[in-house]
């Protein structure tokens, strides 16, 4: 449950949201995304799509569609003509060994998580929210995808929920701690 949570992100900000299990990290993310309605307080956000990697990444994929269509989803929904080519280019970097036309339901856990990350990065929005986006990945994949995330973000803002100090050091310039639903900001 959130009690005194406050978080602000501006264009280009790269913020880590850290805290113990059950502290309210995912709840805060869901409130920011508009998926959970807060009983009090205010959420102000710019209109438009948000790239999102949920904690339950496997359930968030469309197993009946190809990996390519999954990644292209944000672009297709926004009716962008380059949705497919942009998704293909991202997949080439994020999942180079996977056939883009493979059905998403047939991917391994790590591949599913990487697909969810690629989909978030394919979003035309100015904000990417990633809730533990590397939790199912091995050390080398984690390292590689951190690099891809950093490069593909461009000028977009990032809110990264993580338990990993390496993720924070590598990707973020601000850290927000959350515990028992209360946030406190610290320099990274």
């Amino acid at each position: 449950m959130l009690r005194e949570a406050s978080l602000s992100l501006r264009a280009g900000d790269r913020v880590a949201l850290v805290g113990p299990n059950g502290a309210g990290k995912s709840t805060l993310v869901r409130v920011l995304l508009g998926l959970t309605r807060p009983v009090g307080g205010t959420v102000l956000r710019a209109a438009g799509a948000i790239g999102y990697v949920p904690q339950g990444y496997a359930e968030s994929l469309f197993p009946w569609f190809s990996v390519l269509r999954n990644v292209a989803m944000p672009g297709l929904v926004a009716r962008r003509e380059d949705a497919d080519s942009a998704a293909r280019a991202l997949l080439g970097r994020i999942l180079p060994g996977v056939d883009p036309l493979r059905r998403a339901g047939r991917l391994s856990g790590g591949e599913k998580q990487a697909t969810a990350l690629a989909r978030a990065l394919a979003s035309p929005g100015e904000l990417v929210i990633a809730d533990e986006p590397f939790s199912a990945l091995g050390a080398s994949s984690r390292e590689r995808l951190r690099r891809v995330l950093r490069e593909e973000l461009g000028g977009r803002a990032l809110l990264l929920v993580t338990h990993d100090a390496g993720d924070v050091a590598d990707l973020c310039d601000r850290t927000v701690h959350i515990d028992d639903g209360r946030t406190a900001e610290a320099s990274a």
Partner: protein
Amino acid sequence: MSGARPAPSRAAALLTLAGAIGAWWAVAMIHVAGRPLVATPAATLGALSRTAPTLARDLGATAARAGVGLAAGVAAGLVIGALAAVLARRAPVLEGMLDFARSVPPVLILPVCLLAFGYSELARLATVAFGCAWTISLAVMTAASVPWSARREMLDVAGATPRQALAWTQPWESLGVLVVGLRASASTAVIVAVVTEMLVGAEHGLGARVIAAQIGGDAEGLTLDVIAAGALGYLVNLGLRGLERWARRFET
């Protein structure tokens, strides 16, 4: 403790088949009031060789009756289910009413259909359709009430319109439930088609054939017809089980 399932063996399958035929033969040896309950396997095979052309015609008639009735029932069920899914949000009692309608044995509706349509093919088809429609409509209602999934949330976050979100998720998330409903309805269609043929003098069909064999005291023909009806139901079920397996592939 977890035991690995033994690999299927051809010898075991043949042995089981031989056992089943042996059991059939043993039952055929039982006579009640001087008459056999069922014909022996050999006599049934003899009946098959004698009556194969007419059996094929009657099997086809029953299959066609079940198929047309099922198609009509599915069409009606889809419309009723979609309407009920929309209306049930305001009147949840609708789901109970559909469940009640499904619980009415379809063959009891045959007299109603006979009154409405007369002693015609239409009455039989309407009865089969009635038997199928409610199961399908309940499946549609269940499919429509699938909880807001993580995939819907992703589409919401991506800025999808409700129409886009529906197109990306609903047909696929509903597929499994609808195919299960279709499978149940198809089994009902075969049963109801045969029963309507038995109750109202159909010219062709397994039901009419069974009644004719019973009246004529033709144990071989009767046994063959029962097996043919079972085979028809089994084949329909087998085909739809394949379809269900295919649909379930999309869920994970």
